[in-house]
């Protein structure tokens, strides 16, 4: 099998040590979290970093804790930890749902939430849910700390707002509102594990009567250069009471709003077709959850 080529290895014990190394080494150094993406790219020869900075020696970056009306997930929390967390299931079950659709159990035991977000794949399974939940990314660098909304974190395929010498330390999601529900669904080429051809996360917070939309979030994966919040479609949802027709119209606008490419996995045409279907199904489920049927929070 393809062997990994030699690199200079750093295993910092603290965040400040890590960002110091990243800043010093510059573009030649890559942070290593779970390795499920980075090591694959290195083996295929798509990347040949001169240095790897292993973040996993840094203590305290893998916690999942309630925090001031929300949830803070450490960047190094594995996808599997998110999937199995009773804390996450209680407060943000859509994240459990999304995590469970990513890869396979063994991949989920290695891959981290920070790694998934930091990789900035347009097809990220975790990003759409974090976007609709108004998640914020905790960043630390040599210049200090800052927070960026998940929906503003991505600049393009594989590109983020992180500068050299910065790393993700945590992801914060505010508490979901009363009477809300959220869902994530994806479609691949088969039922088994696959990179999403299209993924949709939807979040609905409804008023007391169960039809007025107080808050909405809708985001897609794999249909744009980055995980995309589809704001025009959200406007359709906001524009009146929730009805079957509004859901269908929203789905239609999602399909119009996205800019999917054709690649070896699927055509832009197909992605556009199924993202609309997914949007409808996700919203229907989120509505059901929000209205208190069949579970919810």
């Amino acid at each position: 099998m393809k062997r990994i080529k030699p690199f200079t290895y750093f295993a910092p014990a603290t965040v400040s040590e890590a960002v110091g190394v990243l800043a010093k080494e510059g573009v030649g150094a890559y942070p290593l979290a779970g390795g499920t993406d980075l090591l694959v790219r290195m083996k295929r020869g798509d990347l040949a970093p001169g240095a790897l900075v292993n973040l996993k020696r840094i203590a305290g970056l893998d916690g999942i804790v309630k925090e001031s009306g929300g949830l803070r997930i450490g960047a190094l929390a594995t996808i599997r930890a998110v999937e199995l967390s009773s804390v996450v299931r209680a407060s943000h079950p859509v994240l459990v749902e999304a995590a469970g659709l990513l890869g396979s159990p063994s991949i989920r035991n290695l891959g981290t939430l920070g790694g998934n977000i930091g990789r900035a794949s347009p097809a990220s399974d975790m990003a759409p849910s974090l976007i609709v939940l108004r998640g914020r990314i905790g960043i630390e660098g040599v210049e200090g700390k800052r927070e960026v909304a998940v929906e503003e974190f991505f600049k393009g395929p594989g590109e983020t707002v992180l500068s050299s010498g910065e790393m993700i330390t945590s992801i914060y999601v505010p508490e979901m509102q009363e009477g809300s529900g959220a869902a994530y669904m994806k479609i691949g080429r088969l039922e088994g594990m696959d990179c999403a051809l299209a993924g949709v996360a939807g979040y609905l917070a409804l008023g007391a009567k169960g039809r007025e939309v107080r808050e909405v979030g809708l985001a897609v994966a794999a249909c744009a250069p980055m995980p995309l919040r589809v704001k025009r479609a959200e406007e359709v949802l906001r524009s009146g009471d929730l009805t079957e027709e509004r859901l269908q119209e929203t789905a239609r606008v999602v399909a119009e709003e996205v800019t999917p490419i054709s690649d070896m996995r699927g055509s832009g045409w197909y992605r556009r077709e199924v993202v609309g279907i997914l949007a409808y199904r996700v919203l229907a489920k989120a509505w059901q959850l929000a209205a208190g049927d069949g579970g919810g929070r």
Partner: protein
Amino acid sequence: MKSAIEFKVNGERRQLEVEPWITLVEVLREILHLTGTKEGCGEGDCGMCIVLVDGRPVNSCLMLAVDVDGREVLTIEGLAEGGRLHPLQESFVERGAVQCGFCTSGMILSAKALLEEDSGAGEEEIKRGLSGVLCRCGSYKKIIEAVQEAGEKMKEKGRR
């Protein structure tokens, strides 16, 4: 350049010096000569290299050896205790869940972790739990049956 690592493999303590670019599967197969763990793609897509690290299934082709320091690894060679086969190993043979055998290690270890988390795992849970291990011989049906049977045996014995 080499790092010292200390970890347990199948209950035995091992100390090695490894370069940081060496993966766990290379350590297991080429340094420790435990060839029961296979490598089918090197990229986490096939599951042949799955071993249990601290009880959790991971693709050992995507784990750097330096990250196994201080941890416990279980490979297929360590499953039988005192010469007695694990219920999964028994059921795999008895229920015809083995054909070419190349995926057997990844399947059995993934199933062990699954059953220890949920001994009553039904067909759907087993399918999901084993979704990351490919079997080109197509033994899925009998593998699922063998895992279910082993789950019953494990429940009966109160074993974990």
